[in-house]
Structures are given as structure tokens and as C-alpha cells.
């Protein structure tokens, strides 16, 4: 049995509509950006720079030339990553204006190590060439996001937090903007006393920078037939931030334990441990969602990981101060949409799948794609051009293909996480890959959707530690630490069949890091208010849609 046998009650057409608000109630902006993450904010920042030198255009764009919608409580609330960031795109974006030293990074990567773990040992192995991080900077993406938002606002952008983009507004084969989500609905969708309907927000150019599994991105790819040759696949990353007694002096990646190597498990992934300054450490577990064991829980694999001597010592006497979870698109080059623009529309960042999986990098691509999107939008808004003329925004795709983003992704296109394929292959593969610029190993488009994986019951949970409240924790404590305090009577934003066989219910129950699903008699029960919007369910048979704006996690250090 596989999850795709029980597809979710979701039809993308439900989320595309023509504008419906009366004309005088519609909100009009110049460029509308959906998502205040690195891609969206880079776009907003670059537009601010360009409009500085084009005051007549700025005026023609109206009172709000650049608007950024963010469904989280504030920019950063829904941002989560490792992260070790390649600063090149930020340098380009802020050239001549802000130095890297003024950006909120937690230090340069001086040393790094890759370990292969067994239950009791950690064996140092040479870092694959794709994982060399010298010159890169450690960041909390949530903090970086907050800082980028300030820069965007200083440059004239209007950031609108607590605002979800629920529907794509399209008519006459072009994108007109988005419709924001309603607020104040009850559990059954009924209007509560303080019900506030969403609004039509119209724009000349709409930029979707929604991040992994972007809701409207998926809708737009369907609507405009933009899907790439291979389906997208994802990994789930679960991470914590700890206050520690002794500083960590290196960036660490691990492979091996606690993941199982046998082919039948399909447990591809590893962990990362990064220092954030002298007193903080962030660590996380990343596992491909093509795993088969219904008992697998990335949340609990992370708890298990912490019991390894290498990590236990590092965290001794420390305190867990943050927790979060989010999916990462892993299909790479082969899963990219065949085009990232449509009339009036541009797609950036993780939503497009611009992630270098072996290097675990996506932030600098997001920033670069946002910057290039801004330039394309700016060009299409000049007198004599209209952004919804077919091809007006083609310059975006062209510039992206000419950039290092495309080069990088093409070079690593045949590599699932190098460090997940098994230790023998790891180093050799990586070397061969680099030497042949990606031609070897030969293109295995063996990318099946994660939901097509046959499920097995393989006892993964047997080794998960019980929560001790000091080193290891249970899911509800983790959800609490994410800052999630979504109201209990919020409508269910997760589209999933509930009359499902026990195996599938168990898969979801274990997979979800936030304890949203519970296997019960007859199927599965959904406690949607626990959801931290990681997106794992979308990979495995359900579909996440944006909940009420402002709800969900309130990340600050992730």
C-alpha cells in the first residue's frame, strides 16, 4: 500500500479565481511578492534599489509600489534552515550599500568535519567536494529574514505580516494578483463573530516566493502547465537550537547512524551541527521523505541522534531553546519547472526547487533568483512594455539560466544527498561527479513521488529514546517550543483523507513532527492547530494549504 492510493481532497482549480471584490474595495499594488523569505525579500530589496533611480516609474506604480505578503506572525516566524550560507548573492544584492560584516551572521566557517556514525562511534571521513564550506557564514535564517525585512522596508517595500495568500487571481490567461485568506472562521469553516474576509490584491507583477511546497506555486505550476520532467521530492528537516556551555569550533555533518543503510528502508539523509556564536549550537536531522518504514519519525531520530557520545558531550549542561521543522525540495535540477514565469508571474526560491542537495544549500540561490526576478519585473514595467504580454518576463528565465544558480544545479543533478547513498559510495561518487561535471553517475531519473513508495512496517521506532525532558523531548514539548499557539477552533487547513487504513494512519502519525495525526479506529484524527507547516504531509499523501494568517510557529532562532 502506498500513500498515493489515498489522494487528498484537493483540486488546484479551487485556488484560482478571477478577482471578485467590487472595484473600489480591491487593493492595488505595483509588484506583489508572496513570502517574506530570502527570495521574496531579495526581490523587494532589489526593486527598492531600482525604483530609487526611477522615480517616475515608482510614482506610476501607485501608493504601494512593492508589497510583500507574509503568512507568519512576522518575517522570520516561518523561516527555518541550518544554515551555512554562501554570501555571494547577498554581496551582489547589497553591493556598495551594506557589508557582509553588518549582516546578522554568527561567524565564518573555519573548520568543518564529516563523520560517519555508528551507535557508539564517530569516524571522521573526508568531506566530499560538494560539502566544503570554507568562506561561508553560519546564520539563523529566521534572524536573517527579520533583518532582510528591515532592509526591504527601509527601501520602501510594504510588508504585510499575518496575511496568507489563499488564491491566485487570474483571468485572460494572465496572473492578476492574489486573494488573501479569510480570518475568523471556526472549526467547521463557519464565520465567527469577528469574521474578516480576505481581499483581492491586484498587481502588475506577482512574484511567488513561498518557500518549500509553496501553495500558490503548486497551483500556478498546474494552471500554466509548468511542471518539469521529474516530480519533486522532499526531505524533512527537524532542528533544535541549544544554549551550550562549551563553544563548538566546527561545522559538522554526519551520515550513517541512526539511519539504516539497507535498500529496502530508503533512509537517505544525515545530520548537521553548526555553531552559532560562542554560546549557541544548532543541530538537525534531514531525512528523505521517500522513506518506507511507517514507524520512522524524523523528530525522534533527532532525539536519538543526541544520545550519541559525540553529541551528548556537546550538549551537556546545555538547554534547548528552539525547535522547528520544515521540508526541503530535493529533486534538484531534474525537478525544476520547465519555466519559471508566466504572464504577470514569476517564481523564485525553494518554491521553484532551487536547492543544491549535496551541498545542502538553497539560500543563496533564493536570494539570487529574487534579485533576478526584480530586474525582470522592473524591465517589464518600463514604458512600452506590459508584464502580462506573453514573453515579457522571459528575461527572468534567461538570466537564471545564465547564472551560477543553473550551473551549480546542473552539475549536481544526478546526486541525491551524496552522504546518504552509503558510505562506500559517498566519497567515490562525489569525486566522480565533480570530475565529470555531473555526467557520471548517468542520469537516473529514478525520482518517483515520495507518496508512491510502498509502505513497510520495519520497527524503526524501537530505538527511539523516551523523552527525559533534559536531553530528549516529546513532540508536544517541541511544538510548544516552536512558539505555536494557534487557536484551537481554527479551521482545518490540511487536506487529507481521514478514512484510511491503519498503516497509512501510522505513517502520518509517526512522520509528522508536530503530532497532528493520530491513528484511531477507522482512520486518522487531525489536530490541525498543532501544525508547524513543515509540509511533510504534502509529500506523503495529503496536501497542506495556508492556515489563517498569523498562526503556526513563531520561529526566532531557527
Amino acid at each position, binding site marked *: 500500500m502506498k500513500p498515493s492510493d489515498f489522494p487528498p481532497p484537493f483540486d488546484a482549480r479551487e485556488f484560482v479565481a478571477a478577482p471578485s471584490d467590487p472595484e473600489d*474595495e480591491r487593493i492595488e499594488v505595483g509588484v506583489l511578492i508572496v513570502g517574506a523569505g530570502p527570495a521574496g525579500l531579495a526581490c523587494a530589496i532589489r526593486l527598492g534599489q531600482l525604483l530609487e533611480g526611477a522615480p517616475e516609474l515608482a510614482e506610476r506604480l501607485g501608493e504601494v509600489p512593492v*508589497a510583500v505578503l507574509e503568512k507568519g506572525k512576522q518575517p522570520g516566524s516561518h523561516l527555518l534552515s541550518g544554515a551555512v550560507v554562501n554570501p555571494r548573492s547577498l554581496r551582489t544584492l547589497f553591493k556598495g550599500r551594506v557589508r557582509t560584516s553588518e549582516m546578522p551572521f554568527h561567524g565564518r566557517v573555519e573548520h568543518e568535519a564529516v563523520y560517519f556514525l555508528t551507535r557508539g562511534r564517530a569516524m571522521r571521513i573526508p568531506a566530499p567536494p560538494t560539502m566544503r564550506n570554507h568562506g561561508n557564514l553560519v546564520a539563523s535564517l529566521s534572524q536573517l529574514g527579520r533583518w532582510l525585512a528591515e532592509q526591504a522596508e527601509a527601501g520602501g517595500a510594504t510588508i504585510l505580516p499575518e496575511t496568507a495568500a489563499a488564491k491566485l487571481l487570474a483571468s485572460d490567461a494572465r496572473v492578476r494578483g492574489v486573494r488573501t485568506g479569510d480570518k*475568523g472562521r471556526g472549526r467547521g469553516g463557519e464565520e465567527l463573530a469577528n469574521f*474578516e474576509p480576505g*481581499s483581492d490584491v491586484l498587481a502588475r507583477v506577482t512574484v511567488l516566493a513561498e518557500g518549500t511546497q509553496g501553495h500558490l506555486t503548486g497551483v500556478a505550476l498546474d494552471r500554466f502547465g509548468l511542471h518539469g520532467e521529474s516530480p519533486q521530492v522532499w526531505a524533512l528537516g527537524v532542528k533544535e537550537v541549544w544554549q551550550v556551555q562549551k563553544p563548538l569550533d566546527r561545522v559538522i555533518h554526519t551520515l550513517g547512524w541512526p539511519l539504516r543503510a539497507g535498500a529496502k528502508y530508503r533512509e537517505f539523509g544525515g545530520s548537521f551541527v553548526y555553531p552559532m556564536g560562542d554560546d549557541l549550537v544548532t543541530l538537525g536531522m534531514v531525512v528523505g521523505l521517500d522513506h518506507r518504514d511507517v514507524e520512522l519519525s524524523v523528530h525522534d531520530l533527532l532525539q536519538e541522534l543526541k544520545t550519541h557520545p559525540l553529541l551528548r558531550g556537546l550538549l551537556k549542561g546545555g538547554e534547548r531553546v528552539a525547535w522547528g521543522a520544515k521540508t526541503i525540495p530535493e529533486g534538484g535540477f531534474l525537478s525544476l519547472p520547465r519555466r519559471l514565469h508566466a504572464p504577470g508571474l514569476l517564481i523564485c526560491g525553494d518554491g521553484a526547487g532551487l536547492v543544491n542537495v549535496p551541498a545542502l544549500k538553497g539560500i543563496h540561490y533564493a536570494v539570487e533568483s529574487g534579485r533576478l526576478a526584480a530586474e525582470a519585473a522592473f524591465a517589464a514595467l518600463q514604458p512600452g512594455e506590459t508584464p502580462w504580454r506573453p514573453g515579457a518576463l522571459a528575461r527572468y528565465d534567461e538570466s537564471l539560466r545564465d547564472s551560477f544558480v543553473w550551473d551549480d544545479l546542473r552539475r549536481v543533478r544526478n546526486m541525491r544527498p551524496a552522504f546518504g547513498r552509503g558510505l562506500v559510495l559517498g566519497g567515490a561518487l562525489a569525486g566522480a561527479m565533480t570530475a565529470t561535471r555531473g555526467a557520471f553517475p548517468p542520469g537516473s531519473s529514478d525520482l518517483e513521488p515520495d507518496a508512491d513508495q510502498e509502505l513497510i512496517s520495519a520497527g524503526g521506532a524501537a530505538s527511539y529514546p523516551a523523552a527525559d525532558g533534559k536531553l530528549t523531548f516529546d513532540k508536544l514539548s517541541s511544538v510548544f*517550543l516552536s512558539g505555536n499557539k494557534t487557536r484551537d477552533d481554527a479551521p482545518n487547513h490540511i487536506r487529507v483523507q481521514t478514512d484510511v487504513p491503519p498503516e497509512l494512519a501510522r505513517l502520518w502519525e509517526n512522520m509528522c513532527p508536530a503530532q497532528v495525526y493520530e491513528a484511531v479506529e477507522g482512520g486518522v484524527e487531525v489536530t490541525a492547530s498543532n501544525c508547524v507547516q513543515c509540509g511533510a504531509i504534502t509529500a506523503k499523501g495529503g496536501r497542506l494549504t495556508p492556515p489563517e494568517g498569523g498562526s503556526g510557529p*513563531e520561529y526566532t532562532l531557527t
Partner: protein
Amino acid sequence: MKIAVCVKCVPDSSAHTRIDPATKRLDRSGEAALNAFDVNAVEEALRLREAAGEAEVVVLSLGPERALEPMRKALAMGADRLVLVSDEGAAGSDLVATSRILGAALERESPDLVLFGQQASDADGAVLQAAVADRLQRPLISQVAELRREDGKLRGKRQTEYGYDVIEAPLPAVVAVSDAINEPRYPSLKGIMGAKSKPQETLSLGDLGVAADEAGEAGSRTTVLALGEPPARGDTVKIEDDGSGADKILKFLLEKKAL
């Protein structure tokens, strides 16, 4: 009619608010939000305005510059303007100093009605409204779960330990509302976008005529002597029920004088 709503920006109630061991004051560097009860107060002001046909709703606060952002939520909901008293000399103000400063800011505005949220989530005293009412020499109705205005008089249902009182007071008055009074509205997108262009004033202590020794630690009459760990709960006892579980619980309750 002019309604002034006093609001406080408190650290967002996420997992780690902490007290800065160096200054012994609340570490407010985390993101701030409007105190929940104050949002009820803003909502009540807007409802009174709707009932009256028109009124000016001013939102007032004492805090750092950072407070402007959360205060704009009140503007997004529909308040007309905001006034922030922001001055380093006010940091560390206790009830005496805070009520002096707010009192001065309110005198400057001279509103018909001053609304407070019953208490703040970070310091939980439910004391500010009475201190300010005394400074302004105005009648006070607190812990109000229902409020009505009729012929220049206010009628409030005050919730006490014994049930509800109905108290009447003429305007100008000071009222503190509980969270039972209303369900605050969500700001509309238009409201949020319009908030930035509404008047926002920042004042210093000097603008209010408040002297340095009336504010901050100098103007306070209480002080934090030390910070420590809360007293340990004591040992937890866990037993298996062998039929005598209920008796053992009773014994425990009697021991602890809980009956």
C-alpha cells in the same frame, strides 16, 4: 468624544522571556506584541465610537521605540492616531513613576474616557488603572465585562469574586476592561496598509514636563533586590494504586491542610 486607550507592549508570550541578570529587568529584546487585554480595550473603544457615531480614538503607550510597530496594530484595527512616550529616563519605572508619566500624557490629551486592559501579561498587577485614575482625579470602573454609554454616563458590569456589580460613573472617567468584554476584530488588509499613514507622535519626558527624578528608577519607590530560582516544588510522590489510592490521597490532602 475622545477616547484614549493605554496600551503596553509586552514580550511576545513565546517560550523564552527572561529577566536580564545584569539589570534585573525584563529582557525585552524579543519581539513585542500588544498586551492581549489591551487589544480588548482598543476593540471596546472602537465599538463605543461606532455606537456614538463618531469619536477620536487615540492609542497611548510608555515604552521604547520598538513599541511603535505593535502599536500600529491598534491603528490597523481602526484607531486614529498613536502617541508613544519614549525616553531612556523612563526605563525601570515602577507604578508610581509610570502612573506619573502616563498621567501627564493623558492630561495633555484630555480625553473623555481612558480605557485600560485589566492587566498586563508580563507584570500582572492589575494596578495601573487605579493609580492613573487617582492622578487624573477621575472615577474608576475596573474589571469591566460589559460597558455601555448612555447620556454622558457610563455603566459598567464589574466582575468580582462574588459575581457582577453594575457601576455607574459620569464622564470623564477611567475604565479597565477584562477579556470577557469582547472578541477583538482582525484588522482588514486595507486597515493594515492604512496604518502607516496615520499620525504617530513620539514624546520625551521633557515634552510632558516630567522631571528626571519623577521617572525611571529615580522616580520609583520599589526596587528589585534580587532574582532567584523559584522555590522547588518539593519532592514528587508517585504510588501505584493497590486499592488504597483514594485513602492515600485524602491523607496527603489532610497533611497539606488542603481540605
